[in-house]
């Protein structure tokens, strides 16, 4: 009872990365709270799906398996979640801050009158004192997120309503296997007890999904172009450097908005979070929203012609100069020194 739920997104029998990241985090929270970690998987053809989840420390896998439940539509998934939460009374329910999680989460929270915090960047357990009512709450979920366009960081708590719900973007939490041998149990839900025929009023008639060609999260070296790169041609140079040193190319929002790079390369609060071994920022000023997505990189190099660019403060190396001058030199001296 009062466990932690993670809603797991699944497509074609494969659990989404963001869900595995949340299970990793959920395991740590469950240890702190001395409760169990439960996954909820809603979809079609799910036999064996639990094997993908156990290694992350999942104790119970709740499965709703029905051909009508994939692809995702709002109402049937909402109905399963609402009723399962009413039955099991989890204290915490986590979802990805994806197009699915942000469609489902608010609907579920509205029905259950439970608070929901979108886009958390950190989740912690802690106590809370309500000074006005002289009440102390033990072991609440601190839902930490940037607010006001990223200019402040707010810690949100839900003292009275359960479950405490939060969504988290892909890449924000780390995905880590707990043990290959961890084993939990499966609970198969009788789908007809959870969904009504009237839940199927919205139907998907066409889908065009593409696998992203950009693999920022999986790359150990990320080189990012900002507005200072100046043009698409400037980015072509970055791609050349990337292919020479084996890196993936990211972009700041200003560079994406200016059309220098595609949206799926954006790094930051409204893009991807990366934590590579080496991060090189070319012509990036380093506003909070950008830094939120890269500050955990092991080594940071900033190339900027403004000595006062904020990103320089968090960089290990600052190269003062023009991007257009530095990129070709990096290519040249990398080649020279690896020969």
């Amino acid at each position, binding site marked *: 009872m009062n466990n932690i739920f993670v809603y797991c997104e699944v497509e074609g029998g494969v659990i989404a990365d963001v869900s595995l990241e949340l299970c990793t985090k959920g395991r740590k929270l469950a240890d702190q709270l001395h409760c169990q970690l439960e996954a909820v998987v809603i979809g079609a053809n799910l036999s064996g799906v639990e094997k993908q989840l156990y290694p992350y420390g999942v104790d119970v896998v709740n499965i709703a398996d029905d051909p009508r439940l994939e692809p995702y539509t709002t109402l049937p998934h909402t109905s399963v979640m609402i009723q399962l939460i009413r039955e099991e009374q989890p204290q915490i329910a986590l979802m990805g801050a994806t*197009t699915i999680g942000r469609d489902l989460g608010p*609907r579920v929270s*509205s029905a259950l*009158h439970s608070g929901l915090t979108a886009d958390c960047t950190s989740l912690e357990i802690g106590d809370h004192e309500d000074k006005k009512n002289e009440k102390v709450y033990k072991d609440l979920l601190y839902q930490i997120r940037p607010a*006001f*366009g990223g*200019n402040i960081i707010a*810690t949100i708590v839900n003292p009275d309503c359960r479950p405490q719900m939060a969504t988290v973007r892909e890449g924000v939490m780390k995905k880590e296997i707990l043990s290959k041998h961890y084993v939990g149990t499966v609970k198969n839900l009788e789908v007809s007890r959870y969904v009504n025929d009237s839940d199927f009023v919205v139907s998907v008639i066409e889908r065009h999904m593409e696998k992203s060609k950009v693999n920022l999260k999986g790359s150990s070296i990320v080189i990012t172009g900002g507005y200072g790169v100046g043009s698409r041609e400037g980015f072509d140079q970055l791609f050349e450097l990337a292919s020479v040193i084996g890196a993936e190319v990211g972009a700041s929002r200003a560079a994406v908005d200016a059309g220098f790079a595609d949206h799926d390369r954006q790094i930051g609060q409204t893009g991807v979070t990366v934590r590579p071994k*080496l991060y090189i920022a070319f012509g990036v000023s380093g506003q909070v929203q950008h830094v939120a997505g890269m500050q955990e990189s092991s080594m940071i190099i900033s190339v900027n012609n403004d000595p006062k660019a904020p990103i320089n403060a968090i960089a290990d190396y600052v190269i003062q100069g023009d991007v257009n001058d530095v990129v070709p030199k*990096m290519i040249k001296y990398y080649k020279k020194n690896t020969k």
Partner: protein
Amino acid sequence: MNGFKIIVLAKQVPDTRNVGKDAMKEDGTVNRAALPAIFNPEDLNALEQALRIKEAHPGSTLTILTMGPGRAADIIREALFRGADDGFLLTDRAFAGSDTLATSYALAKAIEKIGRPDLIVCGRQAIDGDTAQVGPQVAEKLGFPQITYAEEVNIEGDVVRVKRRLERGIEIVKASLPLLITVNGSAPECRPRNARMVMRYKKATTLTERQSANEDYLRMYTSHPYLNIEEIGFKDLDANIDDCGLAGSPTKVKKIENVVFQAKESMVMPATDHHLDALMKELIINHTLG
């Protein structure tokens, strides 16, 4: 078909995209007064979709509903200037401190008071919180199905077809009315103000605005009732006070902090051949590169 009854939910927000230094107070809280108040950008995309549906289906009406302080009446005027038929301002001390759940409760109650529509159109999210929660939460409270991330909406007969823009592609879905739709920023931009509508509605005001303007507009509003922006307060709703405002908000802000970065001791160098040669050598030797 006699057209549809459409309600657009729009919010006035501080322009967080242009936060300057003076927008943050010494204590790290936001100085709202220093930020211009604007029509939430994606709510303009929502308004445009609603206007297109209205035009495609003669006889439709488009009502704008906003919850906020008195000055949020600006949003309603902006919508009237672009083709909305009328507007309601939901405003009351009882709603102060609402989180998204208490906001959606009040909006849902106001929608019931105005009369349940065929279609509710919202923006995907408001830039002051970036939560994207109010739309789906209103839908749940009213028992409406929802379609989020809409980019294109077409209604033929009683079938609604919506193109959705998702993270990794697009989806076309089919539904029927009643329905709540949230519109994505990638949908067409809103049309500009229409000069004729500006002439017609520039004097549209709420009762509170008329009272504080210290002018006798009373007569004019009896002859031109369309110039009245109706205010709705808590007492006009069939609502429970415990579900409103701070009391009705399960989420509480425990702490607000300024963003501080962990500054590192950095090695600063000019972009000379000599320095870059040495740096690349070092990165290769310590296996950061290669």
